[in-house]
Structures are given as C-alpha cells and as structure tokens.
C-alpha cells in the first residue's frame, strides 16, 4: 500500500510541475510578457526597471527556475489591478467562498442524483428511468451560465424567493449551487444507475433476498454500498468540473469567490492573479485525484497491485 501511495504522490507532483510549465509558457507565448504586465503609458525606463525586477533579461530557463522557486513558497507576485495586494493573498481571501459554494453544490447534486439513480435502476424501464434519462440529456445540453440566468430570472426576479447575487445566508447559496451542481447530477445519476444495475444482478443480492430481508433493505443498505464505489472514481472529474464550473457560476451570481476573481483578472489582463488562481486550482484538482485514488485503493485491494 505504501508503494502505491508513494507512486501516486510522485505522479501528482509531476502533474503539478507540468502545469507550472504550461502556465509559464502560455504567459510568454505572446512574446514579451512585459506588454501584458505594464500599462500602455509606460515608457522605456519603466520597461527597463520592471525587466530587471522580474529578471526578464535573463535566459528563459533561469526565469523559469526563479518563477518556480518563488511559486513553491507561494509567492506569485503582486497583482497589477488591485494595487498593493499580492496575487496569492487575493486567492487565499476568495478561496473559502468558492469551496463553500462547491461543497454545497456537491451536496445538492448528491441529494438529487442518489435517489433518482437508484430508483431508475430498480424500476428499470419505468417512470423514474425515463425521468433520469431526460435529466441526464438536459444536463449535458444546457449551458450552465444560461441555466443560472434563467433560474435567476424565474426565482429571483419574478417570484422573488431568492436574492439575485452576493454572498450571505443559505438563501444566497441555493440558486448558484443548483446551477453549479446541475451537470454533476447528470453524471452521477448515470453512473449510479449503471453500477446499481450491475450490483442488483449479482449473486450476493440473491442471497440477501433468500435470507428474507425486506426489499428496501436489500436495495438501499446492501446494494448501494457496493454501487457507490464506482461513482467515487469519477469524483475527481466531478471536483474538476465543479471548480471550472465555479468560474462561470460565480460570474453569473456575483458570488465573491476565486472564480469571479479570475474572470475579473482576465478582463484586466492581470496576469499574476490569473497565474496564481490557475495553479492553485490545478493543485487542488490533482490533490483531490490523489486522495480519491488512495481511498479507492483502500476500499478495493485489487487496485494496489496494478
């Protein structure tokens, strides 16, 4: 088990390193990153000064090394748009809001996807199954930002049940969380349904029925526990989806999280902040992957010997 963990941890480190490489090269792809960093009015002395300050007169590999050594310590430079704030500081400020929203969205999507997925498998071909198929189809076709705007329009503007934007108590969270979790509902439900179908057919289920257990216990207690393992494997993909989805959802609902931060930074061409957010997000994603893989290996010993 330890060897498996060590191997996966090493892979994760490699992945994060590749991300920093990609982000670093994207910044320099336009030629001179100074054109991005400095405002238009800057004169040649400004260019000289900033160039020396960021070490841009050095060869590329030296630059990358400096960048990496700073990044490892969490120093992504200072923001250009929000003067006086460091890029990492801004990210740290906004991250809790995003995590809160993502967590809530995940909870909502689980609450919706679990019953429907299980019922769709149990009553195959019936009403629940059709409902599940329709939801899955819509989940893939609806643009999430449009869904958010429509939800806002119907529930916040017309019915006035919820506020349209901002962060606060639970009523501020519901619409954004539904928007964010929508796509995940489709994914989770489909997976749960197919793995439940597999489990319902297996031998040990027949045994529980022979034993005389009530049907609901068979389905919800025994089958679900086994069927739940498969969706766990896509949990990492779901986490990734939640994070990128947060960017869109936070823009629509003006939720003050990292997603909104990065969109504002892009509009202002504040590259330092964008860099910081992307690497932090990628780091979280890779970390989640790692944790899920280890958890999965713990639950299913066959994986460890791959």
């Amino acid at each position, binding site marked *: 088990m330890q060897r498996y963990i060590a191997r996966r941890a090493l892979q994760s480190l490699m992945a994060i390193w590749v991300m920093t490489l990609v982000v670093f090269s994207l910044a320099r792809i336009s030629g001179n990153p100074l054109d991005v960093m400095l405002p238009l009015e800057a004169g040649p002395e400004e260019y000289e000064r900033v160039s020396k300050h960021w070490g841009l007169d050095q060869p590329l590999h030296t630059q990358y090394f400096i960048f990496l050594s700073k990044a490892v310590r969490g120093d992504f430079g200072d923001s250009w748009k929000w003067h006086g704030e460091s890029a990492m500081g801004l990210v740290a400020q906004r991250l809790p809001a995003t995590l809160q929203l993502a967590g809530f969205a995940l909870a909502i999507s689980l609450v919706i996807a679990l019953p429907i997925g299980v019922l769709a498998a149990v009553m195959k071909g019936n009403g629940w199954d059709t409902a599940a198929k329709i939801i899955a189809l819509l989940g893939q076709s609806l643009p999430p930002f449009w869904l958010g*705007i429509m939800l806002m329009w119907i529930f916040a*503007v017309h019915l006035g049940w919820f506020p349209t934007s901002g962060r606060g108590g639970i009523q501020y969270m519901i619409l954004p969380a539904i928007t964010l979790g929508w796509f995940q509902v489709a994914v989770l439900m489909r997976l749960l349904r197919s793995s439940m179908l597999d489990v319902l057919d297996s031998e040990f289920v027949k045994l529980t029925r022979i034993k005389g257990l009530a049907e609901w216990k068979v389905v919800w207690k025994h089958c679900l526990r086994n069927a739940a393992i498969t969706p766990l494997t896509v949990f990492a993909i779901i986490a990734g989806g939640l994070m990128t989805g947060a960017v869109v959802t936070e*823009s629509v609902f003006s939720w003050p999280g990292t997603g909104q931060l990065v969109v504002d930074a892009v509009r202002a061409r504040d590259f330092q902040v*964008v860099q910081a957010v992307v690497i932090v997000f990628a780091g979280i994603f890779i970390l989640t992957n790692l944790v899920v893989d280890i958890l999965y290996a713990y639950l299913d010993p066959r994986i460890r010997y791959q």
Partner: protein
Amino acid sequence: MATETLTTLPWYATPKVSRAMRRVGRYPLVPLALLTFLLVIPALFAPQVAPYDPLKGSLSKRLKPPAWQQGGTIEHPLGTDKLGRDMLSRIIHGARVSLMVSLVAIFVGGIVGTGLGLISGYFGGWVDALLMRLVDISLSLPTILLALVLVAAVGPSFGTVITILMIFLWARYARLVRGETLSIKERDFIARARVAGASHIRIMARYIFPNVVNSLVVLATLQVGYVILLESTLSFLGAGLPRPMPAWGLMIADGRELIVTAWWVSMFPGLAIMLTVLSLNLLGDWLRDHLDPKLRHV
C-alpha cells in the same frame, strides 16, 4: 379469425402503414429537423435569411420586447438588444459563427489528432509512448482555466478560441485513432500490402485510415455540440470571441445585466444553444448506435 382482426385495425396500424413508419423511424427525424432549422440553414444562408444586419442597430429601437409582448413589433419578432440590433438576425448569424468555429476547430484538431494517432498506433515504440503521455497530459488540463490564461496573455480573438479548442480536441481523436490502428494493423490485408511493397505512408493513408473514418464521424458529431457549449461559455466569460461578433455566448453575457427589464436578450440565444446542442447530442447518439456500438464509452 385472421380476417376479423385485419378489418378491425385502425388505419395507422395496418401492416402497410406500420412498415412504412418503421422505415422512417430508422432515421432520427426530430433531431435532424431541429438541427436543419436551427443550425444548418441559418449557418449557410444567414445573409439571405436574416432580416437585418446583425451588427447595425438604431438606438431609437433599443430594447424592444418580442412581438407578442406589449411594445413589441412584428418587425423585430424576438425583440432588440441594448444597441438596437435585431435579436432574430443576431441569433441567425450566431448560428453561422458557432458552426464555423466548431467546424474549424474540429477539423484542424481532428486532422492533427488523427495523424498523430495513426503514427502512434502504427509505429509503436517510444513514439507511441511519448504521444500517449502527451495525450494524457492534454486530457487532464482544465480547458476553461487554460483558456483564461491564454486570453489574459494574448487577448480574445477568433484565433485564440480556435487554438484553445484544438488543444482540447486533438487528444481524443489521437487516442481513438491509435486504438483502432492497433487492432487494424494486425490484419492480413495490411501484411499483404507490406509484402507487396507498399510504403508506410501508403498503408496508413490507403488502408488503415478508411477503416477508422466511421468512428471519426461519430466522435466528430458528438463533439460539435460540446464544442459549441465550450465556445459559448468562453465567450460568456469574455475569453472567447471578441465583440461585436454575434456569438450566442456574448449575447447572453450582454443580457445578464438586463435580466430584470429585458429578459429576451439572454433567453433566446440560450434557447438556441440548448436546442442545438440537444439535437446534436441526440444525433450523435443515434449515429453511434447505428455506426459503431463499440464506441459507447466515448
């Protein structure tokens, strides 16, 4: 007994009619019809079909509601936006923009991916290993985040969007084509071609590629919908197509602040996206089921 049942059947259940209906039912009519009206005709004939110029608006006509509401006119059936541009024309031209972007991205990404996949599967060895690592890395990159990084560096433009989409797309084609190449290259007719002296390139192009086309078509169809969604998301965030192009995502972004007073500016482009992607998905599923059920995992 048999004659009794026949004479009491309603007309639509008679054998002749049900046979004909079954033949028609083989084709996915609803998605195809939706697609034709929403995507193909507007995209191809936008200048002829759209009643107004999508880029020119008159400020005196700004924010008019759709025709069936108070204050709306039949001249602008879906209303106007905040610059007085006709919504219907913009949506029609938007279909053209979306389709163009997706097709270019899928075409270029598909060619690159297919080529690399063929090479990777055919030659194997370190080339294969290297390319597959690249594919894995590509697939694990968070697209929207990277798009934001690129736009922060270079600014939004048609070229930026295509580049981002391509980076996202090529890997799937490469993986698919490589898998198919691996299984095809073991077959007899390939060995015979080698013996007959065919060069590697000739084998890949003339013998392997035609057998891979089926799966490629399915993949491409399934992807067009997703690419349209991705492009409109990027445009919505300001990281996609630049203004004043009539992109659906941009229109929705414009309409967001106006949601209280002018809901139609956001609603109709979004509806267009949803219906287009929905029918593309349905069409793709149908194609996959009929052309190559092996691709169910795609």
